[in-house]
């Protein structure tokens, strides 16, 4: 029997053994704490423990499980909230009360719950890995499609009848090519650090519509894409993630609370169960799974939480769904890597982070993508990772390395947040490399003018940015009229378009069509005013009409389902500006 030799925080060492393999899951001590083998040398095996090691003694047993750290995949994942190693927190509560005790071994999924299973294969069918053999309604909105594990294939020799089954019940039996019999159940296991296979990657072509104007219009993310949201504390990272989780048009949301506040997870739990998904009319929780490793939970499980989350996402992707992962925050994950690395006395690279930080970050983001699954369906995993830079300094290693591996960057800005401009995404520092990939979609589904409008809006903001340099030095009074107009219009863009009120019933989610119309009105206002100004109307006369305020308020005044009102507004602009022009003449 192998026994503990040394203990240092979450790192435990075992001496003189050859029984363990790399990344194997192990049970540590009398309490059977869950751990993972992270280093093996001829003398000692190093294990990181996913729970508090308080009370552990040298000499207590360490037992291997014979398999890598794995996630259990099957119906019952959705609507659930798990800790970093996929233990259901509600079950833990029943077991140990409000405070989490160590060594609680509970199955990830409820083994007593029955699902109404429809078997979709017949005896004699040949099944490849990843093919669907049974379906069941997991929640009112998501059909769970049980798949043959990716590494198994063979001929169906037996199937169960349609009916109510538990995840441990036998649904079908396969006879593999080498004559072995494999039992298929609704659940399967998959190692969390290994990405699940798919047939091929498909080119990215669809946006992940979020209903947030600054994102959809200025820096859109694609389905299967990756985005980073860096920002100091109080800039609204979590708010942004919550908004996306609520409104983006993914089928399923995996929300990973990695080293963040406990109350935030509670908030997601409470809020999502009250909110109704506009597309399905059902509760948002029906399409959501939460992974919570709050900042006071064990640090090693924080590292695992990211992998657990993405494994669950890939599993649903393989069924042909579009998944969006919110990882809040990847910096805490990187810090967990640093902490473990420090305990292992590895040579640190930048700021104490291990040298393998960039490769870990890239491995994680590379698991996103738009793919054709093994069963021939299309599915995607999009990753939106929050980054919490130390001291709000974007040059620190986690932000910099993340920037290299994501194609969408939403930089949150402290000064915008201070002025309570939310979402505080800085339009000058943020970018998206997906614009070109998505051009066709915007052109066909929204309007051929969408990208041209977007470009003009971006130009106005850019122009303002340049002018503000001057204004900061000499004040705005000395600018020529046409430049004053740019500053006024840019204010309309910032306050009326980019700023969005998450607590307003219409403004919290804005469909692409309305976003387009809003840009149209702003540009209409700009063009008409520019014309008037060139004919000698002063900017102060134009602003005195109150048109600018009216356009700013259109996000509240024009409901999402009444696009015809934009026409009226355009006419009003035209009329009022014409009046001004006649006055000058």
């Amino acid at each position, binding site marked *: 029997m192998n026994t503990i030799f*040394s*203990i*240092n925080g979450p790192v435990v*060492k075992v*001496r003189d053994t050859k029984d363990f393999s790399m990344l194997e899951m192990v049970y540590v001590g009398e309490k059977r704490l869950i751990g993972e083998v992270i280093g093996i040398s001829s003398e000692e095996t190093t294990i990181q423990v996913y729970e*508090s*090691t*308080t*009370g*552990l*003694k*040298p000499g207590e047993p360490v037992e291997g499980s014979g398999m890598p750290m794995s996630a259990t995949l099957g119906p019952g994942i959705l609507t659930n*909230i798990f800790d970093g190693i996929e233990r259901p*927190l*509600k079950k833990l509560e029943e077991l140990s009360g*409000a*405070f*989490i*005790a160590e060594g609680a071994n509970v199955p990830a999924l409820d083994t007593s719950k029955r699902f109404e299973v429809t078997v979709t294969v017949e005896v004699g069918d040949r099944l490849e890995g990843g093919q669907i053999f049974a379906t069941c309604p997991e929640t009112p909105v998501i059909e769970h499609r049980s798949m043959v594990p990716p590494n198994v294939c063979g001929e169906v020799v037996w199937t169960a009848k349609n009916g109510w089954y538990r995840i441990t019940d036998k649904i079908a039996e396969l006879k593999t090519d080498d004559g072995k019999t494999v039992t298929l159940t609704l659940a399967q296991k998959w190692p969390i650090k290994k990405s699940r296979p798919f047939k091929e990657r498909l080119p990215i072509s669809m946006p992940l519509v979020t209903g947030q104007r600054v994102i959809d219009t200025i820096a859109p993310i694609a389905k299967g894409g990756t985005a980073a949201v860096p920002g*100091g*504390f*109080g800039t609204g990272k979590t708010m942004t993630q919550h908004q996306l989780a609520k409104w983006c048009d993914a089928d399923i949301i995996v929300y990973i*609370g990695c*080293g963040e*506040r*406990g*109350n935030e*997870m*509670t*908030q997601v*739990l409470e809020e999502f169960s009250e909110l109704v998904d506009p597309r399905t009319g059902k509760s948002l929780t029906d399409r959501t799974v939460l992974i*919570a490793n*709050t*900042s*006071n939970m064990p*640090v090693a499980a924080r590292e695992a939480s990211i992998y657990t989350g993405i494994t669950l996402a890939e599993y649903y992707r393989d069924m042909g769904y579009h998944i969006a992962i919110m990882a809040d925050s990847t910096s805490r994950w990187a810090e967990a890597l*640093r*902490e473990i690395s*420090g305990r292992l006395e590895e040579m640190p690279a930048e*700021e*104490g982070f291990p040298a393998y930080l960039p490769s870990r970050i890239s491995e994680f983001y590379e698991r996103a993508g738009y793919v054709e699954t093994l069963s021939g369906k299309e599915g995607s995993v999009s990753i939106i990772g929050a980054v*919490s830079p*130390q*001291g*709000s*300094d974007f040059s620190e290693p986690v932000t910099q390395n993340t920037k290299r591996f994501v194609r969408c960057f939403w930089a949150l800005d402290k000064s915008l947040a*201070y*002025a*309570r401009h939310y979402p505080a995404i800085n339009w000058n520092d943020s970018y998206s490399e997906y614009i070109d990939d998505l051009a066709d979609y915007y052109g066909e589904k929204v309007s051929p003018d969408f990208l041209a409008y977007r470009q003009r809006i971006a130009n106005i903001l850019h122009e303002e940015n340049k002018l503000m340099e001057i*204004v900061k*030095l*000499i*004040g*705005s*009074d000395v600018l020529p009229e046409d430049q004053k107009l740019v500053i006024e219009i840019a204010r309309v863009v910032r*306050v009326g378009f980019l700023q969005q009120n998450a607590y307003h019933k219409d403004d919290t989610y804005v469909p692409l069509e309305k976003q387009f119309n809003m840009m149209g009105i702003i540009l209409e206002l700009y063009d008409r005013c520019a014309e008037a100004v060139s004919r000698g109307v002063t900017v102060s006369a134009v602003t005195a009409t*109150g048109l600018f*305020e009216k356009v*700013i*308020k259109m996000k509240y005044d024009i409901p999402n389902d009444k696009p015809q009102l934009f026409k009226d507004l355009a006419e009003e602009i035209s009329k009022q500006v014409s009046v001004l022009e006649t006055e000058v003449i």
Partner: protein
Amino acid sequence: MNLQYVGLNEINGPLVVLDGVEGASFDEVVDIRLDDGSARLGRVVEISGNKAVLQVFEGTNGLSLKNTRTRFMGKPMEMPLSPEILGRVFNGAGRPVDGLGDIYAEKTADINGKPLNPVSRSYPRNYIHTGISSVDALMTLIRGQKLPIFSGSGLSHNKLAVQIVRQAEIAEESGQEFAVVFAAMGVKNDVADYFRRSFEESGVLQRVAMFLNLSNDPIIERILTPRCALTAAEYLAFEKNMHILVILTDMTSYAEAVREFSSSKGEIPGRKGFPGYLYSDLASLYERAGVIKGSEGSVTQIPILTMPNDDITHPVPDLTGYITEGQIVLDRGLDQSGIYPPISVLPSLSRLMKDGIGEGYTRSDHSDVSNQLFACYAKVMDARALASVIGEDELSELDKAYIEFGKKFEKYFVSQRPDENRSIDETLDLGWNLLSLLPKSALDRVNEKVLNEKYNPNTAELFE
């Protein structure tokens, strides 16, 4: 286990190494007796085979390799608890030091606590009235929140904390009892005494449990101080159904103690020499605030920290800000211009306020006022920056109005007397009156209806 180990094998700063130990467990408490009869407490921080590394809380002064007897207690650091801890004074390690004898314990609890299951938490929503305009209107304190005060040396954070304690109507309607747990870490004796006197004057001293680790007390003990205090707070809140306000001062000294301990263990330092796990370590304290489903009580934390060199990007305020639910930032400039409380409004924030204000909590127009005040005050800063370049005379009319608004806002809204307790109606109406100094069109965060109702064009004479 009553085996005693005579002598030590190595002493290094606050750490001692003991060889030949059998059956020691990680994180357990040790009792070290010196030959002169005095006792010290320690904790196992690393075990390797039969070698144990111990951290001595009271410091290693006077320890030698042969004058000690060490006993392993077989359990992690625990603290005796009973409702009698209220009104008592403890040292940083949770031992009574007021000469009134030991606590007759109803139970003992591990001071490290256990992580609270997010499923068991109840999202905090109840607003705590503090009577301080800037806090109530702009960074509302919510029961169960952790809202730190970011301050600097010489600023009036203590005065502000005392005012909050005195005026906080924490237990109003619900009839639960209210109590304060006060933990001093590395603060001067005068400061601890100031708090004690203030509690006495406001008549709450019998409802305060004080944990004192003053600046001349052993540094390693400082690591225990907040843990003891929070264990007491959790016990009173979740088992005795009280509303507890925890004041932790000064978190910077605490973090420095963690750094000192870390470096003596030879760990790899992160930013400014603080260990890489400082975030997790601070989180294990701050996260012990909240409300649990099925319990009537709550733990609300007001940690106070002094930002070294007033630098908000220093690791301690930085990491704190990432964990806590907002912050109240004090500003030296305001303090120097005689404004109390010198709350710097823009970087201050309460993350929980959005769900604890408005209809049914404070007043339906609360979020309108606060958003608009923030937005306008941000413009004031822009106008001031511009004025410092081109002079106030050259500013546009609107910018001049902002400058005027800024002055009045600081003078009448932010500033108030230390004993002034403003009602929420007073505060919000004051906000509207100040906003009305600006042209109506500049108020773009408020919806039209509310604005028409609240905009008061004859406001100027109110602030002469």
